[in-house]
């Protein structure tokens, strides 16, 4: 049996959260397993954007498939984010300045394919400095830093679709 049912997936996610696993791979035929525990610098990239709490089946943030059973909640209770398997991020404690996407589109870390990325984690940036591109309808929009400081987090990966208001970078402001 090479597929998992929703119950199995749910149990697996719970186990990963409980054991503080940051990365996890699994192949079934001839089993191949790779597990990596969370360290300080590897808190969930998806935990900061709270908008996913309201869109449990948002395909773009999900690290794991969302079990169908999970979203049958009464509409009154905002379901907790099904797409962020790891608990409380370091982001909240540090009070980083979050750079959010002002438009919906596709995130690119470099000005063109193959070119070096605009910035990487650890770089110091000035307000107004271009950090990335979000492409919308074939137009490349440069997104500028709206604060100066050190990039400590990058919440999205290259060519990932992003929505309005989605967290892109975390800056420790100076």
């Amino acid at each position: 049996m090479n597929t998992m049912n929703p119950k199995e997936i749910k149990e697996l996610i719970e186990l990963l959260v409980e054991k503080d696993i940051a990365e996890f791979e699994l192949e079934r035929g001839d089993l191949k397993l790779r597990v990596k525990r969370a360290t300080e610098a590897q808190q969930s990239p998806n935990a900061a954007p709270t908008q996913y709490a309201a869109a449990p089946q948002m395909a773009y943030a999900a690290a794991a498939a969302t079990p169908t059973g999970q979203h049958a909640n009464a509409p009154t209770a905002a379901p907790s984010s099904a797409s962020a398997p790891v608990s409380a991020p370091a982001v909240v404690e540090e009070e980083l300045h979050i750079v959010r996407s002002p438009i919906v589109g596709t995130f690119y870390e470099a000005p063109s394919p193959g070119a070096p990325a605009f910035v990487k984690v650890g770089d110091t940036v000035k307000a107004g400095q271009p950090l990335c591109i979000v492409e919308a309808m074939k137009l490349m929009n440069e997104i500028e830093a709206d604060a100066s400081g050190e990039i400590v987090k990058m919440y999205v990966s290259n060519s990932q679709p992003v929505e309005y208001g989605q967290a892109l970078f975390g800056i420790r402001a100076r």
Partner: protein
Amino acid sequence: MFKKILIANRGEIALRVICACKELGIKAVAIYSEADRNSLHVRFADEAICIGPPRLSESYLNIPAVISAAEIANVDAIHPGYGLLSENANFAEVCETCGIKFIGPPPEITRLMGEKEKARATMKKHGVPILPGSEGIVASAQEAMEWAKQVGFPVIVKASAGGGGRGMRVIRNEQELPNLYHQAHSEAAAAFGNGDLYMEKFIERPRHIEFQVLGDQHGTVVSLGERECSIQRRHQKLLEESPSPRVTPELRASIGATLQSTLSSIGYVNAGTIEFLMDEDGVLYFIEMNTRIQVEHPVTEMVTDVDLVKSQILLAAGEKMCDVLRGPVVHRGHAIECRINAEHPEKFTPSAGKITVWNPPGGTGVRVDTASYAEAVVPPYYDSLIAKLIVRGKDRQEAIARMARALEMFIVEGIHTSIPLHRRIVADSDFQAGNLDTKFMERFLGPK
């Protein structure tokens, strides 16, 4: 058939389209503004994408944001709902250019029907009755008299250069014409710098009758009968019903046939509604056409058993009309819809806020289309429609009794709604007798 559709709308109509998608096995993608984060259309869609802040211009009306969302979600088609971008020909063109099917008529048709004079001329050419009037400016009281005799009193003269009631006079007979003509002329000149007037037949107590049509991409257009929407306040419909108490089967058949051949000739595709005014003698005159699904579409669905939104999707995917309708359109029973708005039932002031109690009615022949729920917050940024209550009965009498019962059992607390107003309308003797015209609400609300 489409695999994924993006719904470029919000509220109850977005949820309505999601329902049709689910039943057809098509994935639905919702877009939302930050104010709609906890909306039902977001929760029930398969995917949801936030596209902007609350303001319409920055979210639902923001074409690049909508198209960008459609691209990243990789949808096959966009359903525009009603209002918003649904009759925006530019938007339909952008969809086409981006290889996304727009669920509606082709942009040229939307443009044609959006230009009122062109639409009238097109309809007239094909034999659809239009409101008689002067062709162009009426340059003198003499000309006005000639036109008025041709068109038949009463007539109305209107300023060509503007509106808002200025430079408008209703003329009921030959004796008063010269004086009123000159008054209107002076007023128009003072208000707009241009005293030019045109003339139209004036209907004292018109009834608003509209016909629903569907068209496939193979030249077939079908009329699904009429709805009467005479109960309006400030041109906003409050209550709609089908059939109209004043449309005979012969009239329905004859207008239906004329519309089918006219719209087929001009290449109309997908859903549309043709609006008419009916005069006191029961004669219909074309006013305008809406090239989209309408708010009150459930009324037609209830008496014909045709799912209009599913039909739109199937027709846009290229299905033939015979496969979509699967038989002739049969009208059975009588349906009435009340538009429940979040507003004070007497002052009509909008009532945004949190709904603390939400108990919609149920039972035989009752349908509620809504995106509201208990604990939902009605945002202040959008229109005030929070639910549509539709009932069906075997005849008008049963439908009225059912609507009265359903309104009584519709409990909403935390915000004001128009439910008390609807209850009064349904209990009104003129309403019950079918004595309707577009001045009904004026008389009903009356001087206080």
